[in-house]
């Protein structure tokens, strides 16, 4: 149960911080190739930014930006991207998750295709992790309050 209290300082600081946190999360996902990071870590940072939004404002504020429906779609979209990329590799004649085969549809050689495939699945992982983190938080926090499919 989240009790509402409105504190100007907390709200303003969080409002200022959240965009930067989100950009940093995206950076961590995108830069996982050459520095520590990757889909999971970036996804957690993105999820944390939304959770911070819930904590500093309230759930209604959150709902304006991400509805339950959207979160659900994101949850399933991320894993589908991952499994789907693997499936495309299968259709292109390789084994499952053999990203090297992607060079048949991308204008690059097979090593670069692997690199791009890895990036694709990192994005998928990031989306799912973010959505699931927010979803679990909302389910735990909004106990019986939210009546919305």
């Amino acid at each position, binding site marked *: 149960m989240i009790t509402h209290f409105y504190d100007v300082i907390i709200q303003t600081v969080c409002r200022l911080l959240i965009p930067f946190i989100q950009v940093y999360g995206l950076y961590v996902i995108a830069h996982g190739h050459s520095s520590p*990071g990757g889909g*999971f870590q970036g996804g957690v940072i993105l999820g944390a930014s939304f959770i911070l939004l819930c904590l500093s404002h309230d759930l209604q504020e959150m709902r304006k930006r991400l509805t339950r429906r959207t979160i659900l779609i994101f949850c399933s979209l991320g*894993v589908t991207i991952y499994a789907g990329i693997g499936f495309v590799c299968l259709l292109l004649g390789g084994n499952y998750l053999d990203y090297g085969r992607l060079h048949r549809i991308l204008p690059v050689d097979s090593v*670069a295709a692997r690199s791009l495939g890895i990036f694709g699945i990192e994005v998928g992982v990031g989306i799912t992790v973010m959505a699931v983190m927010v979803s679990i938080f909302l389910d735990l926090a909004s106990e019986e309050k939210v009546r919305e499919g």
Partner: protein
Amino acid sequence: MKWIALIAVCLTGGLLIYGTVDMPNWGDPTSPASLHVSPRYIEKTVEETGVPNMVTSVLADYRGYDTLGETTVIFTAGMACLLLLRRFGK
């Protein structure tokens, strides 16, 4: 109950310590773990996948299927919380 728990815990810990006797020392560069499978990950990663971060390349490519499983685990957890806690409108 407390005593049984303590005995069980000490037994487990003792067994684990007994196992460490034959283990390589900390940071030993010639341990089997650093000689058998992992050298290929270190030496070939840039050549084969074009990714300098070995953790990423092993995570997403060499052992990519584990990561698919991992993502599925977290998806499962999300759906599980949803199934258990959410009250659905009429």
